[in-house]
């Protein structure tokens, strides 16, 4: 289990303590629902969707659930209560726990700051976060984990090479005084969150918008203003010499399901997990297969199969619904343009360097 995902799931338990509606998740196909079609005859999955309803569902399944994929009614009630509390917290504009702020406050009192807890790591995540930034589920999910295959909901073991690459990455991420912007994740640097990272639910900005035209499906992701344009006319992938962060996606319709296969990914940099940094860096050879199936007016079932034998010893699958959220609108997320955090963190790091250099040798 990787660091960020671990923090994330613990944080969810700590932070989200209750319950609006309960979702029919994993969303079942409504027998009476007839999927809408575009005027040119493709299934119509257009509109604004979010993965917010999976907020609070651990990425990997806590071991005590074993192979049980859904919560019991009592567990679901407990999670719904957590969701309710989370909504109240966000709506009331409360300020989330911030290790950076706690450290400053402790210092002022001459105390030692408590060890950082919860989902907040380093970098932008450690800054004080106003409550209204936060997203929350509108319906409590039945799922015990986002990972649904292998059956225990846990990632397959890494290959030795991938484990070594993960260890090397974490060493860089945890350097006490970062040397360069390259110490931070591709997300912190506002480059991208990758294919999976762009849809897995996080603290905010989980919206995506699907636009279709004959022969194409386009997906815009709010955070870091990413966009993918997926041809559905049966054309092959582009040359494997052209690699990119979001890869080359080609799609086709299987009944009412959009199937998207992505290859040509830049290996050795991003990971599949949260914000494109959770987990071991994937390889150039990774193939992602996504399935989007509209099962009701307000729900599209999403599935992602990760196939990367150089990184994972088996394929694995994530599945959750993306849903319509009334009033949700995508706004321009000018991440890099407003990335003062990077400037400030590096500036602080160089001040730390100078301070260290001025200390008498011990």
């Amino acid at each position, binding site marked *: 289990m990787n660091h960020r995902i671990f923090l994330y799931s613990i944080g969810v338990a700590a932070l989200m303590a209750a319950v609006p509606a309960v979702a029919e998740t994993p969303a079942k196909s409504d027998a009476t629902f007839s999927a809408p079609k*575009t005027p040119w005859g493709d299934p119509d999955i257009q509109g604004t969707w979010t993965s917010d309803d999976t907020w609070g569902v651990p990425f990997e399944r806590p071991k005590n659930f074993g192979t049980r994929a859904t919560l019991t009614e009592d567990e679901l009630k407990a999670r719904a209560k957590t969701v309710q509390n989370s909504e109240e917290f966000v709506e009331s504009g409360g300020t989330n726990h911030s290790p950076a702020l706690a450290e400053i406050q402790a210092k002022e009192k001459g105390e030692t700051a408590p060890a950082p807890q919860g989902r907040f790591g380093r970098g932008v995540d450690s800054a004080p976060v106003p409550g209204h930034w936060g997203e929350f589920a509108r319906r409590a999910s039945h799922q015990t984990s986002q990972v649904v295959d292998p059956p225990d909901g846990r990632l397959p073991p890494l290959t030795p090479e991938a484990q070594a690459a993960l260890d090397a990455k974490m060493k860089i991420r945890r350097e006490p005084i970062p040397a360069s912007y390259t110490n931070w994740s591709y997300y912190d*640097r506002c480059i991208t969150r990758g294919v999976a990272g762009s849809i897995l639910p996080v603290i905010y900005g989980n919206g995506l918008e699907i636009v279709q035209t004959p022969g194409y499906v386009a997906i815009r992701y709010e955070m870091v203003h990413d966009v993918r344009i997926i041809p559905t006319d049966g054309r092959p992938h582009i040359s494997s010499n052209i690699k*990119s962060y979001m890869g080359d996606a080609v799609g086709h319709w299987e009944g009412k399901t959009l199937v998207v296969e992505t290859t040509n990914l830049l290996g050795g940099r991003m990971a599949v997990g949260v914000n494109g940094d959770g987990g071991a860096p994937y390889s150039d050879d990774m193939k992602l297969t996504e399935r989007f199936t509209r099962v009701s007016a307000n729900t599209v079932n999403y599935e992602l199969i990760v196939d990367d034998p150089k990184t994972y010893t088996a394929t694995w699958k994530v599945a959750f619904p993306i849903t319509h959220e009334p009033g949700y609108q995508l706004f321009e997320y*000018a991440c890099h343009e407003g990335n003062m955090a990077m400037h400030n963190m590096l500036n602080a790091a160089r001040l730390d360097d100078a301070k260290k250099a001025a200390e008498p040798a011990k």
Partner: protein
Amino acid sequence: MLMGAMKHFLFPAAVCAAFLMAALPSPGQTAAAAGAKIPRMTDGKPNLSGLWQAIGTADWDIEDHSSAAGPFFQLGAIGAIPPGQGIVEGGEIPYLPAALEQKKKNEANRWKDDPEVKCYMPGVPRAAYLPYPFQIVQSQKDILLAYEYATTNRLINMGKPQEAATDTWMGTSNGHWEKDTLVVDVTGFNGMAWFDRAGDFASDGLHVVERYTPVDANTISYEATIEDKATFSKPWKISLFLYRNRDKSARLLEFKCVEYAEQLLYGDLVRKGSK
């Protein structure tokens, strides 16, 4: 439907064509003939979907300009600025005096201050004539413009016009059709984007009205009216053509330029000896 109509009217059309064309040549008829070649959506509206790009050097300077040396001699001829004929109607941008001074300052500091150097979003109308392609994905409702440069994208709302909720780089776009012209009204700019690498700019009071008119299946006439009382003495207009990339294998590729600008932006804050 169309085929049926054609079959039905084939004979009279053939008979009348010579007579009509000779006797009553009219702009309307020419437009109708050209219009038949424009790809259309099922509702009859032009379908602008496809991969488009401007030809020319407008991104270097939207006004007429001579060729010039670039800032880095190491790049030789590759780094030089190519000459170009401007896209501004009337030749010159009607700057207010103080704004003209600012433009000159911008130009003097272009290699440092141009948002494109920093991989910032290009704004409108600059996005249309960047030296990168963009793809239009036109649905039966809204229209997505996805630009290769910096993965910038914007959605044109074709429904009830919405007021800009906040100021942004790319503004808030509300579109409607005037016959075969897509008219896009763009407001809510943050005033940080430039029009080109020559420092042409506007304030956050910028209001752009873009007009996309397909002139044939592979060409769009692009016009933009630019209005900003804080910067210009009167509204002015640019016009250029957008050309379809007809290569069968052509795809919008990924140009995430942030990592090519980081050393420029943060290099002085990187520990010496580190990358």
